[in-house]
């Protein structure tokens, strides 16, 4: 099946998933204690004021009606009007989407760049000091909470040796990359802790495969054998680990975004939930769902790119 048609197909399949997700997001918010009107008016609000505001926000309507209105707002792309920001949710999310996407993308690239050479080294020299050192380093990195690791890196690389900015998100692309190095590194270390172990064990298994002997019997140098024959055949399980972990990172960037002052989706989500900004939370939930589905799609495409035996279907 041609790749474009396959992707289109997958995106069409996404529609029922999204409908399910909107329903869950919608109902969960309505079940949650606390409502926007009470929060906005605070303790001074009378029952009459609250009712009036609820009517303004459309929250006095029956639930099914509210849900249909929500769907209509999604279809127009506005995702409704944010209660806290008094503006359309769609453009607000769009603006905050990019820092998160850059963060996820940059940290994933960094994780891969860290993983491949370290896993190969650990596998080829298994049992050596280098292998043990790599293992220990990532156990330490994984055991440290990300906010702590982030603070340590800021202390070291922004204050003691001021190479990277303490926080914020620049204006030009280069500035942004510069600002994203430390936060991405914190995420990448956590990702690489998983992927290095997974890739190391696959490489060890592949190293004793018959076709690796065939490659050696051709007289290829060990480096050629490793990069051309061993690495590609070891990638499958690591791609799964990376895919799952990246989906998780998308929803979990809030700590990093808050720590480094990055105006991304995670921090928006947290503030919207505490303000009971229903349309915003609904819009964000749908956005996260779409991102996770896209990552799954990318993961599947990566399988196909790596192993010719995997067919798109």
């Amino acid at each position, binding site marked *: 099946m041609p790749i474009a048609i396959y992707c289109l197909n997958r995106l069409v399949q996404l529609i029922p998933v999204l409908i399910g997700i909107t329903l869950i997001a919608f109902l969960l918010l309505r079940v949650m204690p606390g409502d926007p009107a009470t929060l906005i008016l605070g303790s001074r609000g009378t029952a009459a004021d609250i009712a009036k505001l609820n009517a303004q926000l459309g929250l006095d309507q029956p639930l099914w009606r509210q849900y249909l209105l929500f769907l209509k707002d999604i279809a127009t792309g506005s995702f409704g009007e944010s209660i806290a920001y008094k503006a359309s949710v769609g453009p607000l999310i769009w603006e905050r989407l990019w820092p998160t996407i850059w963060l996820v993308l940059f940290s994933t690239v960094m994780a891969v760049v860290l993983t491949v050479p370290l896993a190969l080294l650990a596998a080829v020299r298994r049992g050596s000091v280098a292998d043990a050192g790599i293992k220990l380093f990532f156990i330490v990195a994984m055991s440290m909470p990300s906010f702590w690791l982030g603070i340590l890196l800021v202390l070291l690389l922004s204050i003691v040796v001021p190479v990277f900015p303490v926080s914020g998100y620049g204006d030009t692309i280069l500035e942004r990359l510069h600002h994203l190095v430390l936060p991405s590194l914190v995420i990448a270390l956590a990702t690489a802790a998983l992927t290095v172990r997974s890739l190391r064990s696959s490489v060890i298994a592949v190293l004793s*495969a018959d076709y690796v*002997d*065939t490659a050696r*019997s*051709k*007289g*290829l140098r*060990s480096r050629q054998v490793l990069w051309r024959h061993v690495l*590609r*055949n070891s990638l499958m399980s690591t791609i799964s680990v990376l895919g799952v972990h990246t989906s998780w990172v998308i929803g979990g960037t809030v700590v990093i975004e808050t720590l480094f002052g990055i105006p991304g989706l995670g921090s928006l989500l947290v503030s919207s939930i505490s303000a009971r900004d229903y349309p915003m939370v609904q819009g964000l939930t749908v956005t996260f769902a779409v991102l996770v589905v896209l990552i799954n799609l990318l993961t599947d495409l990566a399988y196909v790119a790596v192993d010719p035996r995997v067919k798109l279907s």
Partner: protein
Amino acid sequence: MITGASSPLLRVDSLQVRFGSGKDAVTAVDNASFNIAPGEVFGLVGESGSGKSATCRSLIRLYGGSIASLPKGSITFNGRDLVRLSDKELTEIRGAEIAMIFQDPMSALNPTMRIGDQIGESLRRHQNLSSRAARERALHLLRSVGVTAPERRLDNYPHHFSGGMRQRVLIALALACRPKLLIADEPTTALDVTVQQQILRLILDLRQQTNLAVLLVTHDLGVVAQTCDRVAVMYAGRIVETGTTRQIFRRPAHPYTRALLNALPSSAGRKDTLAPIEGEPPSLAAPPSGCRFHPRCPLAVDACKQAEHVLRAVEPGHESACIRVGELGC
């Protein structure tokens, strides 16, 4: 008949191969010596675990992921001692002068690389061919090993090929740089009988065309009878008998060789039942003293428990390690 003694291409002398280290070390090959002449097909026969694979793999140090220490003894190939070469120097020999084909063609090809690229790789490594020229050669090689419609097959992946076709591809790959010696480690064991015949035929044809020497490792005496000029029989890491194929089959001079031959289904109808060899092959971690076959040997006497391992000539070109050769009636 070609004799190995005249001017050998390969001379293996007192080869010892050990796996593992310290207390767990196992000597897989002990004091093995043999020669192979240019254009000769030399068979290495024995049960699983007899050290025949370790012997042939140690020549180019390919152990399939197990850790072996550097072989002891000498392996003189074309005037150079391979034991003295560094791993890096050995890569110049592998594929260019000594090539190898493996037992299981289903797993010996890289599943994620196109066939044409896999064949072209050694040409580009050793002959500095451009990718276009390597592709041309690969096409030619596939045709010469009998792959049909090779121009369409070059861009296929291994999973598009049957087992027999994959072994043909592996042979094309091994012979790409016109090596002088082909190590074939049980090349037909994983194939069905009709395909076996085609592959053996192909190897023999290619040796005819290019004066290729072949070190054929097998446990199948039928294959030996059909293809080999000379044979060495291995038991528990040692060569126990060596001679021309005719000598070994006509006048086996070691009780183990005899037992192997008796265990063959005979097409001449001499026997109705097969005679299996009693007992099991010994563990190489703790081999029996003296002649390692004595616990299973019907002719064993006390002297066999202390017998030193020495190959003695029975007739010209035919040697046996059995001290009771006289009693064998040959």
